[in-house]
């Protein structure tokens, strides 16, 4: 899995050189932020089910497409919402927080997804809205420390940016 450390070392190795001063600075910067990232990762891991549910509920309540896409006679259980994709991206965001880079999202979540969403006309608008909601409602110190929140929001923005 790609991280700042593996990227720096891979580039140095490819050129047969030692890491440069600026290489080490970027690694240093990455390590300095690791405590905040790990705090965010821990909070997200503990609360992801609630985070996903809240984001999904708000979006589906505001834009109840699943309910109307069904046909008469569907019971409330039948139209229970499917949050699979939101949870999938939250898990990838968690990995990014741990590794300190966007590698997990790039490798699994994002590349290729744009084309699939466009070709199959999948409803990215609902997902984007869910991530924007999560980003905007999360608050420090209630959910996590301010620096942890900054890290979490950065990856939420990364997903919003890449899916839209």
């Amino acid at each position, binding site marked *: 899995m790609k991280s700042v450390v593996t990227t720096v070392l891979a580039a140095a190795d490819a050129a047969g050189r030692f890491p440069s001063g600026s290489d080490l600075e970027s690694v240093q910067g990455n390590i300095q932020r690791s405590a905040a990232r790990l705090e965010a990762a821990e909070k997200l891991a503990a609360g992801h089910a609630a985070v996903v549910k809240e984001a999904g509920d708000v979006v589906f309540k505001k*834009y109840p497409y699943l309910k109307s896409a*069904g*046909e008469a006679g569907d019971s409330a259980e039948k139209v229970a919402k499917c949050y699979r994709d939101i949870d999938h991206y939250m898990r990838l965001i968690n990995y990014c927080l741990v590794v300190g880079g966007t590698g997990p999202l790039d490798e699994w979540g994002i590349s290729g997804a744009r*084309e699939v969403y*466009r070709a199959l006309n999948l409803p990215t608008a609902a997902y984007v809205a869910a991530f*924007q909601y999560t980003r905007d409602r999360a608050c420090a110190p209630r959910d996590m420390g301010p620096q942890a929140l900054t890290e979490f929001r950065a990856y939420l923005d990364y997903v*919003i*940016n890449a899916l*839209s």
Partner: protein
Amino acid sequence: MENRFLNIFPGLSEERAIELLYTPMDQLEDASERYIAAAHLVNFPSARAIDALLAAVENGDSPLDNRIVRRKAVETLGRLKVERSLPVICACLQDEDHYLVENAAWAIGEIGCNDPEILEELTALLAKPRQSYRTIIQTLAKLGYTPATGRIAAFEQSPEPPIASAAITAVGRLSGERAGLERLLPFLQHPNVNARRGVIQDLMDSEYCEAIPRIAACPVSAVFRLRGIRHLADAGVPTGAVSFEQVESSLDRVIVDHPRFLEPVHRYERTPRLEELIEELYSTDFGRCYLATQTIIDYYPDAGPALVASFEAAGHNDYGAHYHIVKLLGWLRFGEAREIVVGALHDRRPQFMKSRSAAAVALAELGDARVLADLHSCLDSFIWELKYACLIALEHLEDPTGAQIALQDADWVVRAKAERQCTAPLAH
């Protein structure tokens, strides 16, 4: 065009969507409202809606929440094929936001364009760093811009498989040299799921009908395989490039979708425990799901109750696992779960559409003649895959009436299948 998700915000009127699109970001209740409005206006191609979309594209404010609105507005204008939007969309090609550039390139391809200046501008993007080369290459090929062929060919060796396969495809389309298209086939077995999904699109764009049996065996979701095979059949049967009889066995295999029909790209070092395998059914890489399915069939024939437990706990609400569990309940002939399978056959949630075909096949496996009426009722559906699956299931259950009904179907593939069933002796 696939449109089951187009109108996902039915409560949102055209009037309100236009109003939202003109509302400054800081006056919105939610950051997502303008983005959703830009997506939703695809349902209302009026002059006023198009004006609002054009204004949104021209709003160059740089915060992310506005940038994504611009991209979505460009995409919507592309879907609506609004010719008068071309100047505004072309102005996006030089934007710093490379996703906006990508959507602009795609939209130009949708709208159509033979202005050499614009096509040259698109081609020049190939020399610019950090661009969505795959989309740009696809657009140039779609628009038939042959002067770009040499510059596209440089990407055939790209380390990014989706870019390399798009370049091979584009060179084949632009030069008319089909011999090189064979190089696309190995991508169907690439370890990266995006490479596998991407190359199916490339084979569709190439109209490479010879690839149909290989697409059928590619370990990605049946949705992608059926989309590819159906596109090639629609293009190739009328021209005589391929016959329905040649396509039929591939279609049957993908609709039945037993993992033994697939060429797996993953393998296990040791046989996982059943719980681990069931967890794999929730993976977003269907290649892994199919390997888990085959392993459960081979090593855990009594997995039925554990699968039902997983379905009750989570699978009922996960469109991936839902599909694989329904399939497995059929393969394992776990008749106690009949109600789950019948429920899946009638599930109307849009993301669970493929589970309905899965359920038809699984019911045939369960060999329960009580379901004939359920299967017949699905022959009225607008989903051709479901009708095709029902025909296979009904044949398996030795019911000839389904094929008689389907002889009049509006969909030519369903009709062709029904005709084959009526003329050929029953397979079982």
